[in-house]
């Protein structure tokens, strides 16, 4: 149906028909050419001078136009009864357009026959119209002209070589118009007869009964009709008077171009003829009002407005009096139209617009007409008439609205308005608005408020006024209309709302349009399984629900024409969009292979930003349900799925649980149906961004490669034990250190690794994913996509196994997700860098800032329109950012060892303190690569506490040294790296031997075996890599160490002979040594805290002394003292002045103890002597009755200053002896001793012989002092103190005698010591001596 035009009453309709074999484009081209003739000047119309036909012919030199319109389909037959009431609705002429090409060589006669057949097909035999027809044959090619034209009436051939065809076509149309005008006269002539007038007044919508007046029924003589121009012969006076035979009216046409379901109840009720009985009976009283109106209508069509206005006024007067309100209203409409036509033509001539508000007069008439239509309650035959009255009522309302709209849109009463009223329609956007809507690109076609308001202020017509007029057209009476008319009306209403920018109202009306169309679709399908209703989508552009399938008995698959579906769905989407639902939130992609190109990682997908709810949730859900129902009814299954999923995605917040389940299951069902039917379209992945995090699971320790610098291989022995490489960092907090720790993950070529992906499901149903796979860049990987179900409303971690096929850098960008029946979509997950974080935060805060405030109201607050505004503001900042992804390094294939067996049972070893045992570990190479590098490292439970103590730095220098010594020289595990082979070919075994040392406090340890294939052949001559990779095997060992022997009470004493004699006999032997003065006694107590006896041996191993040892059996629970003579020794001064060393490369720590210089020196001396002493003396133990032996550690023992003095060789040695005169020879002889005690005689002169030997390297001066005890019983000669010895050279000795006499019996002790008057501080290092004497009577 043609779009609504205000001026339709003044336009002659000429139907354009394609005839014969004609290409669509060719037809369109010439149809467009014909359509350019919108109006023809009256002067151009050839006059028919015949008397009976000249009535409507324009007078010569008349000014004025005939207005033409060119529909391409005829009015439905149901409107046939309106032919006299509203002739302008009917196609009054027909132009056939045919093509003749030399190739086809279609004969003209056949074209003409086709044309005529088509005419008889389209128009019922009894129809009043069309009045004239013509067939234009255009030659397609200008080659050889087919001049065999013949002379066919009603057929005009336009040769291809003819120039200025347009002019010719124009004259042809003018001819046609002339014919039509002539026929007007014929029709009116028949009406003017009394019988005709009675017919006219018979019913509300009368018809002339022309068919019955035919001499012969039409079906008997089709060829005659087709060969002749039909109408002139039909209408002649005598025939009109014939008696009619109504049989022909029952002919029912089967092939209809018309709309609607063939047998909808309304259609049946509105079929005119068969129910009519005896119309003549009513027409007793007949006024001429209707006749005048018909006359006026014809004059209006003929462009003679003066005559029309005269007849209209006449008619109105008569009709008003006779209460014929419908005809009255129609006359008023005609009058209104006439004024506009007048205005148009006058304007075109002189171009002077008339005064203010000139349209009010027109509007008044239209309003009056509408009121009359509305009031008229049709008296008889209500069913048919209701529909027509409603039809005219709504059209008059729309006429009113379109008038207002035209005035509003073209800024007042001007030529543009007239052109719009006469030749435009509501379907076309007025030029004032269309320019603007082009400039606002893509999105909304909404008229901006400002421009609309400008128009309103110019014209004084507000949009709401137009809207209220349009709203009057909407009401329950729409149900009276046939579906075709209803769609027409609703569509026009919607178009007007759309132009006004009232999108919500437009959406409301469009829902009704959809309802109509879908009803037709559904009903049509129910009734006929085969061809669907043609032309159901008349109102909507391009809707063609035709189904071209041929009906068969079995199993012919219908090929659906989806073009119409698409435009219906477009309407659906538009409605939803107005309500704030983006039905295309999930896109449809063409096929499975076409992956959606760009991956999604933008922040807009982030779910955490709380989107403010827009719109009316209840309505939204309802509309979405309807949209889905529409798509299901079409049926367009991918669209069903798309709608379901889109609404789930955008509306799931406000959706009830039942709806969510329903939509999800509907989508799943639709998708499976679509797939079954071979639909290639697929739904894009829909459920937001499902992936929350990706992480690579670290490889198991056994497989984890560790990167080492290649320099490790060449460098044989590292200087510092790695255990002690403690804190070398001078900073307490170093942020760089934590960064350095985060090196990229290492993976191994051809070995599987796992990636954990956390997925999120915000819906209340279990989300099914048919495919989930990794999206990577860099080296190739092999990974199987997996299917899974994400539980409702949860975060769900998934592990995907993959395997890298080559070495290099692997970037894990995200993952590819596919929902069942959908397309694969890639989701990127960039690492959150600081930039990214701040960008997101800024964005979030911008959104947060907006939420809660109503910056955008109404339709502007729809999520997509809001986003558009926002993104335009931030587009510049987001441009240059490149995402960073999770990366890991894939290294070359690595060998793999496993521990085949060990010598331990249950991985446990039990040791006595100081015991040493060995562990044998057998490794097996289970890979296909050889191992050519093996290195063992160890860890045990004593290391960490010691390291921590060292790191804390609270230990004294001495303790630090001890701890470090313990760590370095007495590790629990040791491995002799030089021994044995360090390579294993594939499948070979390799044995490593580890020594294990019992150390108290050790509870467990770990043996790490690092191995690698580092000397692998390189395929290229590139620079060898700086690093190689090792793998580590770890073998934990449970260690139990029994503490059974304890050494304590260390003492070092000067050697006195009585020591030896006091000892038991069996131990005396080791104590016997030569020169007493050169030795001292090393004494320590050993306690056995264990349950079995141990044999303890101490060995002396001094450089210039014979080896000696002493062995003792220490029973359980008892303590034994061990005595071992040690030869005194002296360390060089420069050695003992060295500070206590640190074994690690720890930074020098300033000593916190405030020791004076002497004290420090003393400390160093003690330290160095102790070190030497521990080097000379070694303790061992042996299990009695067993084979286990071990070391006895003395390192926990400390020595003191007196011990030091005893150990050290003096600088000057003093030797005392008692001599006496031998009676016989007067020679001095030594007094005999017993057990080291002199036995001098009482009261006799004895000599105390003192020998001073300088043992230092330099000559020195000494004095000697004596202490005699008890002094009162000893007489002596000379002085006892500061006896000068004089300067003694190195190793020079000096002897002198001091005579003494013991004057009492008893025990005496004679002590002497050397002093050096030059250096008092050296006193301790000078010798002293003591002799004991027992004087007996």
């Amino acid at each position: 149906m043609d779009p609504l035009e205000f001026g339709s009453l003044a336009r002659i309709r000429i139907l354009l028909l394609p005839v014969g074999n004609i290409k669509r484009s060719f037809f369109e081209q010439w149809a467009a050419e014909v359509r350019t003739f919108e109006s023809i000047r009256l002067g151009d119309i050839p006059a028919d001078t015949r008397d009976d036909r000249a009535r409507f012919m324009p007078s010569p030199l008349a000014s004025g136009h005939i207005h033409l319109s060119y529909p391409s389909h005829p009015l439905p037959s149901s409107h046939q009864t309106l032919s006299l009431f509203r002739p302008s609705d009917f196609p009054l002429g027909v132009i056939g357009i045919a093509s003749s090409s030399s190739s086809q060589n279609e004969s003209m006669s056949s074209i003409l026959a086709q044309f005529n057949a088509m005419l008889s097909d389209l128009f019922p035999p009894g129809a009043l119209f069309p009045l004239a027809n013509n067939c234009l044959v255009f030659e397609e090619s200008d080659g050889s002209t087919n001049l065999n034209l013949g002379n066919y009436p009603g057929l005009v051939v336009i040769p291809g070589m003819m120039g200025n065809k347009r002019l010719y076509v124009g004259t042809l149309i003018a001819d046609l118009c002339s014919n039509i005008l002539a026929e007007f006269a014929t029709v009116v002539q028949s009406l003017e007869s009394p019988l005709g007038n009675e017919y006219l007044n018979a019913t509300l919508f009368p018809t002339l009964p022309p068919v019955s007046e035919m001499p012969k029924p039409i079906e008997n003589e089709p060829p005659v009709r087709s060969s002749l121009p039909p109408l002139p012969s039909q209408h002649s006076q005598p025939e009109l008077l014939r008696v009619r035979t109504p049989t022909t009216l029952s002919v029912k046409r089967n092939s209809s171009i018309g709309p609607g379901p063939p047998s909808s109840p309304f259609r049946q009720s509105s079929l005119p003829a068969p129910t009519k009985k005896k119309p003549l009976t009513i027409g007793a009283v007949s006024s001429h009002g209707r006749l005048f109106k018909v006359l006026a209508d014809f004059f209006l069509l003929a462009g003679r407005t003066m005559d029309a206005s005269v007849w209209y006024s006449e008619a109105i007067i008569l009709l008003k009096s006779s209460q014929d309100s419908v005809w009255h209203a129609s006359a008023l409409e005609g009058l209104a139209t006439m004024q506009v036509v007048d205005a148009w033509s006058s304007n075109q001539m002189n171009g002077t617009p008339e005064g203010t508000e000139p349209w009010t007069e027109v509007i008044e008439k239209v309003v009056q007409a509408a009121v009359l239509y509305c009031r008229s309650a049709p008296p008889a035959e209500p069913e048919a008439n209701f529909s027509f009255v409603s039809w005219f009522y709504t059209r008059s309302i729309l006429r009113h609205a379109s008038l207002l709209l035209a005035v509003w849109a073209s800024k007042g009463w001007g030529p543009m308005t007239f052109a719009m009223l006469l030749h435009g329609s509501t379907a076309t956007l007025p030029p004032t608005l269309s320019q603007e809507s082009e400039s606002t690109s893509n999105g909304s076609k909404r008229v901006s408020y400002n421009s609309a308001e400008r128009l309103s202020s110019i014209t004084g017509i507000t949009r709401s006024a137009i809207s209220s007029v349009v709203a009057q057209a909407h009401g329950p009476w729409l149900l009276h209309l046939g579906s075709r008319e209803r769609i027409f009306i609703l569509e026009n209403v919607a178009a007007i709302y759309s132009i006004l920018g009232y999108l919500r109202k437009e959406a409301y009306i469009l829902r009704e349009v959809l309802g109509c169309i879908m009803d037709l679709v559904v009903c049509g399908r129910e009734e006929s399984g085969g061809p669907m209703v043609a032309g159901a989508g008349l109102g909507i552009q391009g809707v063609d629900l035709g189904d071209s399938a041929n009906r068969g008995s079995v199993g012919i698959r219908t090929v659906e024409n989806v073009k119409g579906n698409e435009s219906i769905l477009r309407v659906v989407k538009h409605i939803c969009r107005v309500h704030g639902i983006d039905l295309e939130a999930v896109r449809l992609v063409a096929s499975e292979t076409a992956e959606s190109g760009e991956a999604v990682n933008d922040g807009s997908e982030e779910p955490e930003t709380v989107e403010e709810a827009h719109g009316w949730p209840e309505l939204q859900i309802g509309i979405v349900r309807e949209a889905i129902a529409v798509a299901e009814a079409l049926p367009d299954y991918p669209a069903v799925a798309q709608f379901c999923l889109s609404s789930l995605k955008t509306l799931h917040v406000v959706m009830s649980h039942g709806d969510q389940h329903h939509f999800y299951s509907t989508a799943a069902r639709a998708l499976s149906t679509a797939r079954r039917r071979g639909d290639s379209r697929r739904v894009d992945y829909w459920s937001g961004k499902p992936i929350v995090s990706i992480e690579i699971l670290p490889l198991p320790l056994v497989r984890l490669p560790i990167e080492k610098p290649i320099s490790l291989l060449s460098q044989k022995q590292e200087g510092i034990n790695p255990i002690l490489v403690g804190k070398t960092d001078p900073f307490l907090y170093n942020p760089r250190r934590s960064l350095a720790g985060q090196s990229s993950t290492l993976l191994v070529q051809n070995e599987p690794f796992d990636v954990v992906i956390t997925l999120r499901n915000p819906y209340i149903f279990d989300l099914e994913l048919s495919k989930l796979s990794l999206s990577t860049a860099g080296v190739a990987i092999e990974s199987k996509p997996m299917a899974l179900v994400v539980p409702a409303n949860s975060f769900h971690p998934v592990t995907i196994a993959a395997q890298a096929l080559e070495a290099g850098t692997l970037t894990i960008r995200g993952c590819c997700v596919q929902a069942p029946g959908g397309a694969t979509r890639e989701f990127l997950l960039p690492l959150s860098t600081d930039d990214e974080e701040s960008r997101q935060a800024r964005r979030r805060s911008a959104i947060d800032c907006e939420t809660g405030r109503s910056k955008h109201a109404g339709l502007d607050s729809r999520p997509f329109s809001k986003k558009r505004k926002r993104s335009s503001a931030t587009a510049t900042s987001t441009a240059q950012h490149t995402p960073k992804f999770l990366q890991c390094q894939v290294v070359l294939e690595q060998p793999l060892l496993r521990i085949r067996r060990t010598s331990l049972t249950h991985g446990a070893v039990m040791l006595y303190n100081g015991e040493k045992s060995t562990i044998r570990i057998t490794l097996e190479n289970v890979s296909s690569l050889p191992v050519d590098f093996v290195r063992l490292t160890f860890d045990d439970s004593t290391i960490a506490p010691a390291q921590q103590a060292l790191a804390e730095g609270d230990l004294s220098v001495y303790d630090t040294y001890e701890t470090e010594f313990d760590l370095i020289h007495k590790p629990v595990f040791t491995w002799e790296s030089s021994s044995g082979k360090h390579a294993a070919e594939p499948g070979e075994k390799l044995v490593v031997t580890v020594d294990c040392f019992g150390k108290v406090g050790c509870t467990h340890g770990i043996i790490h075996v690092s191995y690698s294939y580092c000397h692998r052949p390189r395929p290229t001559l590139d620079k060898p890599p700086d690093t190689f990779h090792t793998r580590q095997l770890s073998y934990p060992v449970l260690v139990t160490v029994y503490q059974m022997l304890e050494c304590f009470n260390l003492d070092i004493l000067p050697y006195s002979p009585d020591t030896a004699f006091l000892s038991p006999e069996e131990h005396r032997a080791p104590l016997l040594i030569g020169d007493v003065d050169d030795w001292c006694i090393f004494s320590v107590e050993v306690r056995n805290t264990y349950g079995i006896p141990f044999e303890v041996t101490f060995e002396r191993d001094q450089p210039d002394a014979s080896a000696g040892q002493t062995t003792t059996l220490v029973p359980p629970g008892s303590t034994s003292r061990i005595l071992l003579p040690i030869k005194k020794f002296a360390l060089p001064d420069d050695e003992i002045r060295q500070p206590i060393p640190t074994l690690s490369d720890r930074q020098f720590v300033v000593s916190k103890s405030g020791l004076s210089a002497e004290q420090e020196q003393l400390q160093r001396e003690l330290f160095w002597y102790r070190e030497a002493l521990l080097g000379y003396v070694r303790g061992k133990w042996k299990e009695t009755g067993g084979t286990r032996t071990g070391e006895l550690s003395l390192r926990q023992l400390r020595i003191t200053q007196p011990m030091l003095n005893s150990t050290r060789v003096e600088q000057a040695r003093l030797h005392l002896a008692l001599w006496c005169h031998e009676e016989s020879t007067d020679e001095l002889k030594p007094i005999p001793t017993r057990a080291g005690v002199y036995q001098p005689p009482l009261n006799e002169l004895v000599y105390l012989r003192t020998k001073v030997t300088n043992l230092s390297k330099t000559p020195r001066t000494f004095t000697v002092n004596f202490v005699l005890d008890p002094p009162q019983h000893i007489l002596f000669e000379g002085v006892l103190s500061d006896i000068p010895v004089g300067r003694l050279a190195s190793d020079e000795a000096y002897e002198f005698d001091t005579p003494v006499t013991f004057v009492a019996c008893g025990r005496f002790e004679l002590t002497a010591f050397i002093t050096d008057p030059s250096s008092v501080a050296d006193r301790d290092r000078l010798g002293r001596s003591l002799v004991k004497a027992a004087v007996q009577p």
Partner: protein
Amino acid sequence: MSHHLFLLSPSDTPLYELTHLSSKPSQATPSPLASNLPSWSTSAFAGTLTALSGASSAAQSYHTQGGNVRMGGGKDRHVIQMVANASLDVIEDVMRKENLMYLKSVDKFNEWTVSAFVTPGNMKFVLLHEARNDDGIRSFFLDVWELYVKTMLNPFHTAHTPIRSAVFDARVRASAKKYL
């Protein structure tokens, strides 16, 4: 005769809905064209169309001459919401020109007349009614506004929070009984 009140947030979301059934008889006379409607088609889509065009309510009142009370439930409720939503177009248009808060009879659709009240915070109170009752509706709107402002005094209440207060509801109902 029934009234339907909707409190709409600036983003068109209803925060509060009220259907008030007044005891007064309906004064509107249906158009003669609305009578004698054909029973049309049976498909669900036709049902939608019937409801949206206002035919179902017209038919209902036509057939049940005495009982003029129409219930706002089921399909009709949806239609009423649609009408209220569609009238926002006109309200948004008119409210930018009018400097009044009360927009009386701003729109007419089917049998409904729409009056609106726009608060300074761009909240829209939309009332669908059938008969003219300007003063009553104005007083009713002022009452509702006051109640709304009192609700908004709650610091946790934003322009987008649905109003679920029972007190609010009771008072609005009382006011509706009084004025409508």
